[in-house]
């Protein structure tokens, strides 16, 4: 699943993920016609609309063995929230539960399903890892991305103080309350720059958009990269 931000704004993350997965011997397929998982609608309280979008996604992936998502928040949406959207419709609820079972966020897929902890990536550099809220608290995942970063031979991982604190993105929050969103971001970026790392790595397009946008505006030398870009070496450098 490419996700809307991944498709439109970060296609290089999708390309990196495909390369990474193929390098690990996974046969990758891309059901065409993907749009969005519906999370932005859901989180803003438009649940009826979110259910309509979710229904489409469920149909697209009906026959996929594993569904890998390069975004903690979209994976959370599918795994945790899809079934509840169809609580009055047993047939669609079962379909939602089936998709939820088959769906994994990328780092979880690599570690839990493939059993991979060491990826031979040409990437070289010092990185720090930001815990995306939905991956950390929604899916309870903080170890897999760190395990994979530590396992990449050219990567030095330094811990980010306050790694578990939100970057201030919050979807529509970032444009509803831009000043507050930016103030939260400033705190995060000060912390990132304090680590001396070359890159801040995250597993969510939203956080990358927020942190990357802030870093680039400041003219910082630090880059915001997706885990897949680091693990595949497709980091555009």
């Amino acid at each position: 699943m490419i996700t809307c931000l991944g498709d439109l704004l970060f296609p290089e993350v999708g390309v990196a993920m495909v390369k990474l997965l193929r390098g690990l011997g996974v046969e990758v397929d891309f059901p065409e016609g993907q749009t969005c998982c519906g999370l932005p609608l859901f989180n803003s309280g438009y649940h009826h609309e979110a259910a309509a979008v979710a229904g489409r996604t469920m149909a697209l992936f009906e026959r996929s063995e594993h569904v890998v998502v390069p975004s903690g928040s979209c994976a959370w949406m599918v795994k945790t929230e899809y079934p509840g959207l169809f609580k009055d419709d047993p047939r669609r609820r079962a379909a939602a539960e089936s998709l939820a079972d088959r769906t994994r966020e990328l780092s979880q897929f690599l570690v839990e399903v493939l059993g991979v902890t060491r990826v031979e990536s040409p990437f070289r550099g010092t990185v720090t890892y930001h815990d995306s809220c939905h991956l950390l608290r929604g899916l309870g995942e903080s170890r897999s991305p760190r395990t994979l970063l530590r396992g990449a031979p050219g990567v030095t991982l330094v811990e980010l103080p306050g790694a578990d604190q939100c970057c201030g993105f919050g979807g529509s929050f970032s444009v509803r309350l831009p000043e507050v969103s930016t103030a939260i971001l400033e705190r995060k970026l000060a912390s990132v720059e304090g680590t001396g790392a070359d890159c801040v790595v995250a597993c969510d397009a939203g956080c990358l958009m927020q942190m990357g946008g802030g870093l680039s505006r400041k003219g910082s030398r630090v880059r915001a990269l997706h885990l897949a870009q680091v693990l595949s070496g497709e980091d555009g450098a």
Partner: protein
Amino acid sequence: MSDAELRVPFPQRAGAALKDAFLQEALTIATTKFIDLRKEAFAGFPAGEALRDQARRIKEATLQRLDAHLGRLADNVERLGGHVHWASTGAEAREIVLRLCRERGVRTVVKSKSMATEEIDLNEALEGAGVTPIETDLGEYIIQLAGEKPSHIIAPAIHKTKGQVAELFSKALDGRFAADPEVLTAAARKELRQKFLDADMGITGANFAVAETGTVVLVTNEGNGRMVTSLPRVHVAVMGMEKVIPSMTDLMVFLAILARSATGQQLSSYTTLVRGPRQPGELEGPEEFHLILLDSGRIRQIAGPLREALYCLRCGACLNVCPVYRQIGGHAYGHTYPGPIGILLTAMLRGTESVKELAHASTLCGACKDVCPVRIDIPRMLIELREHVDQEKVAPWAERAMFRAARRIMSSPALFRMGARVGRLLQAPWVRGGRVRRLSLFLGRWTATRDLPPVAQRTFSERWKDLAGGPPGDGRRGRRAP
């Protein structure tokens, strides 16, 4: 917050808070300290997680039979010689207190920190009736002198630096005071001592009330609560009806997690258990004890979408970890209860309309749920609240139209593809060095402070054909090659 202040839209109130350098300094220091203390307290307390689950179960079960527990509480308080008053609204609760003041010739009241009395604007009502209320909790005393409202559930003056407090005391009290917490505390203590002795009535809230024994429990750190409940001749406790718990055993569970969540203490310095007025043979205590049980929108929510908010212990932990609260402080929220739980409580007490902006004052990061001693799922309820804001059509018309349009686009790959093409055309004049630096209208809110990646010249969907080297997928593959 006054009606006039509330007419300033929330984003502007928040913006003003962001520009207040004193507030920013005070908030960062205090919330960071609270976060660390809480973390340490639970790290050294292996039983904590199970007790949190147990506390949640007690709250769930108690709400199932709230009427029975309240009835038992009232019977036991009355058996001890106390009086129980039922108030369905804040106005009724205020009127009960004012009547007691009138009938008993009360001229001054000493108060211990209480969010319930803040909720019903009791101080203003007392002043209006010619009764002088004196806050005796240090933080509450500070903000009363400053003519302000609490900005945190347990640390009402969290928004003030010690320098600001020294300045305030030097203006309001006799003398010049250094910006030293010990000096300032001593000054307040000296000032308050005589007030305790002179007061005709003591007013408190209640952290818990134990049904089986008729005990009202106060969790404090300054000892003022004890003097408020024992020195004046009348003690009035005001509590939300959801604060009742069945037994003393239950109380032990809550006490084990409350202070740890709030201040990182194992127990607060004082845990005061009040059972009715002074009993025959006792040397201390008030002649009269009154317990006011406040509904004010709570009962309705036992079967409502905000039910879980009734579990809240008012520890303030969710405020300290909330990225939004940490930036804007409590006053910007505009209501008695700030922070993530405050949004839900405001919706409960004042209706959905009152939180149509606040419902969105959260990144939904979930840190609040993580630290809540009774694991209230605050993010989920905020999302549901947003849903109600939509359904009750209090969300702006343009916003609802926009989200309905988004559904159309997301439901149609053709429209989605067209959106990408239109985006590429429209953004062209603004792309510099592979970044969008300034957009207008809605997206200008993003680009004012952050760059935006442009819509890719070739989206992933468009690049897939090169990557796939085969016919379009049918979704069947995804297996690891042997």
